[in-house]
């Protein structure tokens, strides 16, 4: 099948973006957006559909198997991982653009440093030893799988790059440590969670079904809200 891929491009953060189109052909139903981008960049003299020479397309990736979160971008209008989106599921015309909530770098590359800063701000680390209550084990495992890809922030109506609200990506991390920490050690983290996440979340739950790792947001939040906001004790 022949796929026409429109890519929003810029060579510099200050540049006005433009669309450049490329053709990718395959009959392999397993091929993803990542496969197509890798192939396009393997061509020494890459040409667009108009026959013009094109610079290699800048995009972030690493594991190519949905485990590192690097290749998040907007695909046909929705955030997702390039290595997770199969071309045959997307249709013959595909649009790719960078995540819009983060500072642009070049082409599909964005600077997601704010996510790491928010994890620091949210105090996502353990103070004291973990409780290891069996009752929270499934939630802490699930939350530990967070890729920090940014898809949940891209779709969130309340998150923006320089805002106070940390968004779900930091809250998922916080939920793990909040549920494993003792009450004394967790006091400061509880306050931060309530201030930087709980009060800012508009409960639109737009993030619910977008997570590429399929983290159960409802279960995660019900755990961390109970501990940090409602000050409930966790049952062993």
């Amino acid at each position, binding site marked *: 099948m022949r796929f026409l891929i429109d890519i929003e491009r810029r060579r510099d953060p200050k540049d006005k973006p433009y669309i450049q189109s490329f053709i990718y052909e395959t009959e392999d139903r397993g091929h993803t957006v990542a496969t197509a981008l890798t192939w396009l960049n393997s061509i*020494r003299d890459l040409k667009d559909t108009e026959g013009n020479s094109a610079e290699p397309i800048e995009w972030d990736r690493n594991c*190519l198997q949905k485990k590192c979160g690097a290749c998040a971008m907007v695909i046909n209008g929705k955030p997702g991982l390039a290595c997770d989106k199969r071309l045959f599921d997307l249709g013959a015309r595909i649009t790719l653009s960078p995540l819009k909530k983060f500072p642009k770098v070049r082409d599909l590359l964005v*600077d997601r*440093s704010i996510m790491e800063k928010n994890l620091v701000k949210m105090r996502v*680390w*353990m103070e004291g030893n973990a409780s*290891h209550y069996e009752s929270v084990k499934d939630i802490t495992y699930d939350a530990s*799988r967070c*890729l920090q890809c940014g898809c949940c922030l891209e779709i969130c109506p309340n998150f923006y790059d320089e805002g106070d609200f940390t968004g779900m990506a930091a809250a998922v991390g916080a939920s793990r440590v909040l549920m*494993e920490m003792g009450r004394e050690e967790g006091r400061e983290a509880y306050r931060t969670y309530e201030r930087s996440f709980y009060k800012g979340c508009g409960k639109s739950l737009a993030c619910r079904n977008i997570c590429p790792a399929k983290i159960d947001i409802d279960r995660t939040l019900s755990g961390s809200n109970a501990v940090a906001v409602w000050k409930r004790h966790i049952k062993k």
Partner: protein
Amino acid sequence: MAINVIGAGLAGLSAASTLAETGVFVNLISLKSPYRAQSVLAEGGINAALDTMGEGDAPAEHFADTIRGGVFLSDPDAVRGLTDNAPHIVEKLLEMGTALNTKDGKAVLRNFGGQKKKRTAFSKSSTGKIIMTGLTDLARKYEAGGLIKTFFHHQVTHIDIQDKKCKGVRFFDVYTNKEYYSPGPVILAIGGYNGIFPEMTTGTVYNTGDLLADLFDEGLVLSNLEFIQYHPTTVGIPGKRLLISEAARGEGGRLFIYKDGTPWYFMEELYPDLKNLSPRDVISREMTKAVSRDDTGDTVYLDLTGISPDTWKGKLSDLREEVIYYMDLDPVKDHIPVTPGIHFFMGGIYVDKDHRTSAEGLYAAGECASQYHGANRLGGNSMLGAIYGGSVAAGAAIRDAVMEKDIKTDPEETGIVGKEFLSERKVNADTAFLIRDILLSGLGIIRNKEDMEEALGRLSELFQREDLTGAEKKRIQLGRAMLLCALLRKESRGAHFRTDHPERNDEDFRKTTVARITDGSIDISFEDIKEVML
């Protein structure tokens, strides 16, 4: 002064946190954030003789299995430290809240290759991801406390080595191209060199091996480059090999091939002792032999249909989801066709037991360093080696450094890296695939002199091409060194099997293969290893 740590996978985070714990300032420099590190792909588990399963396990047995698994090429002193400290490392991970599988607060252990006792702590089959989450939290705590300064999306331009002494590191921001210089000791935690074999390994895109090739070119000593681990159970997916974790066999999975129309569980017949959990080099070799017989089919299958529903749910649910997604097969009822794929590099930077390299003030830990795994790494020992090795390297760096640890210096901005520099660093895809194919023709699972010599000849020819970039030339040199190590080791041992020298030869080759570039030419020698009694 600060100590510079390059790489934010398990080894880098372990080194950085160990340094920060003792009050030393750290510059943590990495092209990617820890969430993108190859360590998150590690699946099956981490070995430690915790003996929580009541089998009477002990670190001495872990030591003996590691030495035997590495076919007596590992550094015994380093392995002793590794295996003695393993229980403490896993207990510490649990204290940190790392979501390993536990029962009554203690780690549950599973069987893993090359080991008869249950010794592998795990978190379903996502152990690397879960441990990385814990270690990233720990590093973040020190970052918030001002001891670790992170430079993610930064890449090394040059490790500053003068007269065999490391003076510092030059690196640049790949978003802005701004360059910095940071003086002081450097700990390399740069991972394996998957990029030498693009699309043919289970690893990540950015572990290219190009920094290793740079360092080799500048005279850093490497070792055991001929030992490449082919993991028995991988499948091809677009752009790479997908690992089917050894945990699948640890929990009861069996390998078979059709022989005269019926399943032949060849590992169980040929190796009645360890069966499907024989060391990886042994299984990969037997798989290669099995498919080349006249009376067998051409595909080896992994049969997981005997695994209980409870085990699927509690220990392997993630692996099942992955197989369904990528292969459209449900391993609960379908057999998975598997082939060996490149998974790990036992060789790398030559280090002593304290992770010192051949350059003073330069250390290496994790997959880029070579001393724990000898001729073949046991499953479950790579994460252990990375975490332990990172902490040992940090300890050595602290002991060796002449520095006032409470004085912090930030890296100094030195300018902008130029276009010429960036284009010289580029490895074009067509050249990369050419180098890969030449290397694969000589460095497969079963090797011989003729193939290796031919591959060397083709690489030498390619090296003469005038349009090569600097990085492409260095990659070819590294490849030549790998082939030369393999050619000169005239025996078979672990992952290195030669049809022209099929026997192990301890007298001449129970030695470390040492590679260095002297006056522009590659020099290979063999160095004695301390005796070990098991």
